């Protein structure tokens, strides 16, 4: 683009001022709640109740985080969620590559048929009850596998990966490898995968986010408390206000009030703690987003 900043007209200047003000307003509206939650989680519960926390922590305290460490349900949920996320994402990536690579090959005879088979599932699904009945028949109810196997592949991510393979793996590579006597599976593992790190990172993140944030499947399929992922425990505490046995149950009104205050503080700390894993993962993958999203969403 030309260096237009030298000869900006009056209209352009007005435009710039308006534009920057709008963007700055958006920035504040989005960032402020996030900052507030973090600050609140490090504040004293009394300062929080009295409304003295506005931007930075007031009367710094770690009570909320202590309450989390002491809460058995949260600890267990955390570990469970890590398990589901880790195993689930590995299964997801392996399955996605297994289906996406063959379907990206133009010389596969049944490619169109299989692709249609997958695309159809994106626009029509059987609905809650028939799926539930299938899961029950398969004996997956209340098994840890129920959060992994029924979500082994996502059709959307498959389409994204197919497009990536098709557009960024040169065909000549395959020919060269074939002449050297390389089989298809060998070619996939040794040449395609190392070249596809950006897309693997992006779909890996998307899958990981889905696993970490999922609660509905766990809610309808799991009944054993020791298998609950973190989100179920979050729902009990954040939305249904069930803090857990170790915090409630007392008759003394003063202690009760203190515990109520602590409960609010616990919520803020819990929001922070439950978001940390993804917030750590996200900056590493962020640079690939644009490419990943672009490749998938609009064909051609």
């Amino acid at each position, binding site marked *: 683009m*030309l260096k237009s*900043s030298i000869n900006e*007209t009056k209209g*352009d200047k007005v435009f*710039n001022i308006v534009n920057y003000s709008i*963007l700055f307003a*958006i920035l504040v509206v989005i*960032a402020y709640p*996030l900052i507030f939650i973090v600050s609140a989680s490090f504040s004293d519960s009394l300062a929080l*109740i009295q409304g003295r926390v506005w931007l930075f922590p007031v009367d710094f305290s770690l009570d909320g985080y202590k309450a989390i460490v002491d809460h058995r349900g949260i600890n267990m949920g955390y570990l469970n969620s890590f398990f589901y996320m880790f195993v689930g994402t590995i299964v997801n990536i392996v*399955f*996605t590559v*297994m*289906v996406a690579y*063959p379907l990206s090959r*133009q*010389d*596969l*005879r049944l490619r169109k048929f*299989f692709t249609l*088979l*997958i695309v159809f*599932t994106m626009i*029509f*699904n*059987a*609905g*809650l*009850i*028939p*799926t539930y009945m*299938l899961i029950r028949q398969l004996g997956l109810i209340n098994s840890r596998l129920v959060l992994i196997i029924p979500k*082994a*592949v996502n*059709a959307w991510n498959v389409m994204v990966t197919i497009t990536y393979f098709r557009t960024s793996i040169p065909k*000549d590579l*395959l*020919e060269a490898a074939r002449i050297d006597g390389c089989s298809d*599976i060998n070619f996939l593992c040794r040449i395609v995968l190392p070249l596809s790190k950006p897309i693997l990172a992006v779909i890996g993140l998307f899958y990981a986010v889905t696993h*970490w*944030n999922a609660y*509905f499947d766990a809610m309808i399929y799991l009944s054993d408390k020791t298998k609950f992922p973190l*989100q179920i425990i*979050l*729902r009990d505490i*954040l*939305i249904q206000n069930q803090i857990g046995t170790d915090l409630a149950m007392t008759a003394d009104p003063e202690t009760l009030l203190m515990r109520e205050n602590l409960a*609010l503080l616990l*919520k803020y700390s819990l*929001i922070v703690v*439950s978001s940390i894993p993804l*917030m750590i993962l*996200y*900056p590493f993958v*962020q640079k690939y*987003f*644009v490419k990943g999203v*672009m490749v998938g*969403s*609009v064909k051609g």
Partner: protein
Amino acid sequence: MIRQKRTQKNYTPRSKLKVIQKEWYLNWQLYLLLFLPISYFILFKYVPIYGIQIAFKDFSIIDGVWGSPWVGFKHFITFFTDYRFFNIIGNTFILNIYQLIASFPIPILFALSLNAVNCKGFKKTLQMITYAPHFISTVVMVGMVFIFFSTRTGLFNQLLVGVGFEEVDFIGTASSFRHLYVWSGVWQSIGFNSIIYIATLAGIDPTLHEAAIVDGASKFKRLIHIDLPGIMPTAIVLLILNSGKILNLGFEKVLLMQNDVNMQYSEIIATYVYKTGLKSFIPQFSYSTAIGLFQSLIGLIMIISVNKLSQKFSESSLW
């Protein structure tokens, strides 16, 4: 190249069987790779479609899917004549259309606005921060809405009182459900939904802008006449996709935000299916499946018709 070579070789007429044999011999490893994932799709996506037939039967666990007696459209009629029918359908449409109207243009405007920024540092920071809420889980998001909008301790009410207004009980007011639902969604998705538009804008030919500058076009004029038409095709494709999802968007969030107070506004088809099918003491599998099927069909019809409309009025379409 490979494909070409093979067709040349196969130029002499051979039986179809041999062609298939040869294809299998060349690509058997690819089919081997496909085996597991395709079985997954068949088992978890197509087998349940077979189960849909219970929408037309009186399903009993003892007789199974196959053995239960056919009853035709009985369950559909029960739903259509239910006194809650119009309320549920209305809520579903209003909530989703409200959401579509609010959350579709805003990322576009945001992307256009961001694209006009020259300072790279500001742009990067803004992108980084606005993407972040996308990763907050639905449960936490709803929890945040409840905390921020609660009376007494809620940040929003503390602000209101601080400026001199009266406290408002947002969570306890039924009619505020829709606004809380839609605008918290906008807050969460504005950044992430704009990625695709930002990428499209980056792909617009810079010579267009140069020519316009030479002709004396202002920044605003270039935004209207170059950038906006440049992202329209992308926007239309996304609009079609969104309209197809219109009936099953955000079910989990509605379910979490639902309480006894706002039921009049928050009961949608999906939550009703969940309640009659799984949550009630006497699960009505057939009835619930019928309602779910009704919802899927409307979604399918929507996506097909919006696609048709789009083919008629513009160049872009999904297929």
